[in-house]
């Protein structure tokens, strides 16, 4: 095996044996082991696999791992052919359709499978997207741009800034809606961040992802993407929102405000749930239906206000029984400008943390508090502890759940370094992150019935 060896995933004895036989990934090889012959295509090996096996894709399509020992013979019997990446031609764009831009940040909203080798490749160009999700051609004139190629856990507040600027650019160029394809793990953080960074938008900015990868026929990627493009180009609202499955069925996609939505399940399609809110719209049977009258209206005359700065000097401290308050001191020492406490219940942190909190506030750190209950509203007037914390200068986050409160604190401290000004901004309702009334809607996902028909 030659220069390609490293990317093939092979190492150790297996790599040596392949090198000796001059075999490359994709070649047709014959491995003879214990008197049996395994013939097929040499397949790349997972990075985490051991160095003792060679993986062959047999003619039947199955992969098998053959243990390499000194008695095993490897022969190259044919040269591999590289899969051709012929993108289908771009279908004719229908001039009467609205313009949508799809920004991708990583992961695969659409992909193709090379069944010859079993490789999965993402399809990101507009023509690829049309090829894989042909329904898009009847909804919008789609333009695509790859902004990053990162797993969502590798995105930072810096990336939020770049993404906000990119979206603003496309809006300025006249896009009728922006769709952002995003990994689901931190999608809600990005949605909250863009909600604060893109104020008074003329058109919707819709984040979309998939809980089942797009290489599988059961993927939710295409359904979610179609709904996102529909909402971005046709919905009457102009806000930052997430479009994902409303239930485990493929029948309806919920559009939920970016500051009020949270990933609540590790694997289900309907993982994104509105918190202290209801979805603002639903896409079903190709129709966008508004579910509330309270939303910012789409209006191309609106002037977008771009405020893309975020401070990285902000920390989240989750209170738990036994928390060492030295953690708070450490953050203050490190120069943190803001700390979000994730308190218990209505908004509490044990008395033994008070000294550390007082010290932080005295040193000019903005300390806010949200509840680890996630659902419900913080009220620090009910118990002594809450009242004490208020007296220390801790700012309650009302009905914002911790992640949105954290992102808001980062954004606020990106706008001002003045603590008093920051506190004022923190309490202002910027992007629908506060609601005045808490409604008796269902909360959580546990125990909810699957449905959708």
């Amino acid at each position, binding site marked *: 095996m030659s220069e390609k060896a490293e990317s093939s995933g092979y190492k150790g004895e297996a790599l040596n044996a392949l090198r000796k036989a001059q075999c490359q990934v994709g070649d047709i090889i014959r491995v003879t*082991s*214990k*008197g*049996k012959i395994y013939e097929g295509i040499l*397949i790349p090996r*997972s990075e985490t*696999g051991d160095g003792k*096996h060679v*993986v062959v894709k*047999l003619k*039947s*399509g*199955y*992969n*098998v*791992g*053959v*243990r390499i020992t000194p008695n095993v013979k490897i022969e190259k019997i044919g040269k591999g052919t590289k*899969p*051709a*990446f*012929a993108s*289908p031609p771009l279908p004719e764009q229908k001039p009467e359709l609205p313009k949508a831009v799809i920004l991708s940040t990583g992961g695969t909203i659409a*992909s*193709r*499978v*090379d*069944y*010859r080798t*079993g*490789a*999965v*490749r993402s*399809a990101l160009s507009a023509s690829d997207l049309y*090829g*894989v999700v042909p329904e898009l051609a009847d909804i919008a004139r789609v333009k695509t741009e790859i902004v990053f190629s990162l797993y969502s856990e590798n995105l930072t507040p810096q990336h939020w800034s770049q993404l906000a600027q990119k979206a603003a650019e496309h809006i300025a160029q006249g896009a009728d809606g922006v769709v952002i394809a995003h990994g689901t793990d931190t999608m809600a953080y990005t949605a909250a961040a863009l909600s604060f960074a893109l104020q008074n938008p003329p058109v919707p900015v819709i984040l979309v992802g998939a809980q*089942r990868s797009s*290489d*599988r*026929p*059961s*993927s939710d990627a*295409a*359904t979610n993407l179609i709904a996102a493009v529909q909402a971005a180009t046709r919905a009457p609202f102009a806000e930052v929102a997430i479009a994902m499955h409303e*239930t*485990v*069925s*493929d*029948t309806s996609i919920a559009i939920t405000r970016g500051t009020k939505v949270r990933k609540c399940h*590790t*694997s*289900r*399609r309907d993982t994104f749930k509105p918190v202290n809110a209801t979805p603002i719209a639903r896409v079903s049977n190709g129709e966008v239906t508004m579910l509330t009258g309270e939303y910012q209206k789409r209006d191309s005359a609106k002037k977008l206000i771009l405020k893309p700065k975020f401070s990285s000097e902000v920390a989240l401290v989750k209170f738990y029984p036994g928390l060492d308050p030295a953690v708070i001191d450490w953050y203050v020492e490190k120069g943190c400008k803001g700390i979000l406490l994730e308190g218990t219940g209505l908004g509490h942190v044990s008395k033994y943390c008070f000294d550390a909190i007082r010290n932080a506030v005295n040193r000019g750190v903005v300390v806010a508090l949200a509840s680890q209950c996630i659902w419900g509203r913080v009220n620090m007037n009910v118990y002594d502890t809450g009242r004490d914390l208020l007296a220390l200068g801790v700012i309650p986050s009302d009905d914002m759940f911790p992640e949105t409160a954290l992102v808001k604190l980062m954004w606020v401290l990106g706008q001002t370094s003045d603590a008093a000004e920051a506190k004022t901004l923190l309490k202002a309702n910027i992007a629908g992150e506060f609601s005045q009334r808490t409604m008796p809607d269902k909360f959580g996902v546990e125990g909810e*019935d*699957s*449905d*959708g*028909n």
Partner: protein
Amino acid sequence: MAIDYAKIGLKVGLEIHQQLNTKAKLFCSCPPALFKEEPQITFLRRLRPTQSELGQVDPAAFFEFQKGMRILYEANRATSCLVEMDEEPPHPLNMEAVEVVLTAALMMNMQPIDEVHVMRKTVIDGSNTTGFQRTCIIASDGWIKVGEKTIPMQAASLEEDAARKTGEEDAGKTIRYRIDRLGIPLIEVATAPVIYSPAEAQEVALAIGMILRDTGKVMRGLGTIRQDLNVSISNGALMEIKGVQELDLIAKVVEYEVRRQLGLLQVKEELNSRGVKAEDLQQEFVDASAVFQQTKCKVIRKAMDKGQMVLAVKLPKFGGILKRELMPGFRVGTELSDRAKFWGRVGGIFHTDEMPNYGITVEEVEALRKTVGAGNEDAVVFVADTSENAHDALKAVVERAQEAIAGVPAETRTAKEDGTTRYMRPRPGAARMYPETDIPPVLLTSELMEKIRANLPEPGEKKVARLMKEYSLNEKLAKQVVDSGYAALLENIVKASSVSATTVAAFLTETLKALKRDGVQVENVADEQVLEIFRAVGAGELAKEAAADVFAWLSKHEDKSLNDAVENLGLRLLSKEELEVIVDRVVAENKRSIEELGNKAFGLLMGAVMKEVRGKADPDLVARLLRQRLR
């Protein structure tokens, strides 16, 4: 007419799938069980054909997707979790199932794979919520002996069973599947295509089935084993026949398939001699609704009343071809009709070879011929349905007719209970497989292989010899017991009761076979219940003659106990006192015969008493009581 299978170049390969009786499913901890009640959970999905690099998509799957096919899945909490719903990644491969497959593979002299990789085999008919079936090769390249012949075995795989179809809605646009069966482990073993006659196919399947049963870890009963056949003849085509459920049917299915292919080859010759070319068959469809305005045909009447249409197409020079029989009750017309049903979602088609019929008059047929411009040498196929379905159906009919000119089209077919086969779907292209990255590869270590080798089940011949020696069974009975797969049960029963091994063996072989012939669902009775029956027989609580009746009753009342059976069948044994009353009465009633015949009246009296108490009394006791009274 007997067929010379060697001369026509018959080749058959077998693929046998059997469910494993493991504690849990293959990729989650749900029990491998089905449910009969109403579903507690339903959800609706669509499956999207994944594009491959070469832009290939499965034609049938893509067609169904374009038609907006939706799948309504049914589930309950007892039998499935988020894994089967495709809402949670699969758990690691169930090692208990791997061990069963390894056991079978070693018995078939296969070589285990060093490192097992689970694959995704694309299947988008809805039978898998994911859109693919998870499958892996566990061992390959072995052989078994069937009689004198060595049959090469290609591979032993482990895969997840699919969801089962429970119905259709909205004119076939929504398909219902129940996901209880999804994820049950299946072993699949495949032979090379080296079987050359129908009888041999059945023999090989029997031999494989026996090895699988010897593992002691496979499910029994209808629906737990499915035999797929690959059948081809020279100049014919390779046919994939799915889902033969009964072993006894295999020879018949192969024979019928051969007859069908030979018949199609004759049709081809006839069409060629008539000079029909594929391009003569045009997709020119004619709206023939006007012909049937006043029709007495119920099917067409109903369609017209719903505002649907009659669409017709001419098949030039096909006159008389469509009524040719290919298999019992299956004509060339059936070939066309099966395609129309699949691609056009119609109930069926009409054609002029079967007219006049179904309330359609000679006059209507004449008018129809005129409408499409068909002469007597032509055939006309027509269908009554929505415009979309009718067009799809006739398009499929024309394509199938074109294939008839070329010979035998390669297809995937499904086996019916009478041994005939029907069109299921086009043959899929090369298996679309790619790695299941959610499941880490599994090393088959030498420690594991040693453990499996040390615990291999006793081979059949050895078992026969041992049963003869330990239980004094004759060779024929011992062999029958081993062949039936009930050897372990026999040993358990004999150990737990005082009933003779020969009695138990005869019951487990001849009696059960007879019951099965009478339509008793033998698999409905658990081994534990059979054991209980014989415990009762041994304890003198149940007459051994009643065992079969009790068994049959239990097979129809799955939740009931042995006591319920005895109670319901009135089989409680009579006490000696009760029996004496009956014997005395019979003796009194036959006083004259006794006086005339003396001791020779015994047979007559015995018959009279037994007629009343059969199954409720031990015949030896009856004889003793009678003798006492005749003295």
